[in-house]
């Protein structure tokens, strides 16, 4: 898969995609690359779950929701998305800034 250009993707000033519905897995790879993350299967478990939750509930899941409903533990989540997993995972999944407190 070649990396797509992010030129035509709209981001807000904090770096979140403006339109979550315009997201594609290729865009996720490009955002991850920009953020310095190489996506593995384990990242995709989180990203796919976050996308599914967004589709069902209209917002990014909380980290606790992710660790409760996938086999990704808190420790692994922090290792996969270093430097603040809540924001980074939402960014790569093309979702808005998470609003949950947990």
């Amino acid at each position, binding site marked *: 898969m070649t990396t797509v250009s992010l030129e035509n993707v709209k981001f807000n000033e904090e770096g979140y995609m403006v339109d979550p519905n315009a997201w594609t897995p290729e865009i996720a790879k490009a955002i991850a690359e*920009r953020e310095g*993350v190489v996506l593995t299967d384990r990242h995709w478990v989180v990203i796919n779950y976050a996308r599914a939750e967004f589709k069902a509930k209209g917002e990014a899941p909380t980290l*606790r929701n992710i660790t409760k409903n996938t086999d990704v533990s808190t420790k692994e989540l922090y*290792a996969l998305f270093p430097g*603040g997993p809540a924001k980074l995972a939402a960014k790569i999944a093309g979702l808005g800034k998470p609003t949950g407190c947990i």
Partner: protein
Amino acid sequence: MTANSLETLAANAPAMSKKIDRKLAIIVSKGSLDMAYPPLILANAARMSGVDVDLFFTFWGLDIITKKKMGKLHIATVGNPNMHPWFHIPTLIGILPGMSALATWMMNREIAKLDFPPIPEFVEMVSDAGARLFGCKMSMDMMRLTKADLVDSAEVLSAMEFIEMSNGAQTLFI
């Protein structure tokens, strides 16, 4: 994933484009159920945002990381000015037997509705998220506690050591 591969993963993680240079030190001094949640929630929120966090548990706050007590924190219904507005329990009623248990039960129920974990699980989660936990040595001596009484992830620290360690951090006293 094994601990080893987790470490490898962390070591190989490319430098984040924006390293967050912010540190929070929270002094946790109270051990009632209603006062145990705020420092844990803030510590967790900070870690979720990539902010470094050290928690220093002192005096009654030690109960939160003491294995035998952390699962049994309760709310006082007498002398707690927060009782009336939220729980509608006037002080005179609060002295009745069972009222503290009732308020504790109510709070645990409300907290669970918000998907906040019970205290022992919350402490583990915050630690797994990378927050560091420290028991205050002087408080531990006073309560005749040793490191073995605390959760495994906690270290013991004197007040002076904590002050040195929290140099440059934003400090909260709760």
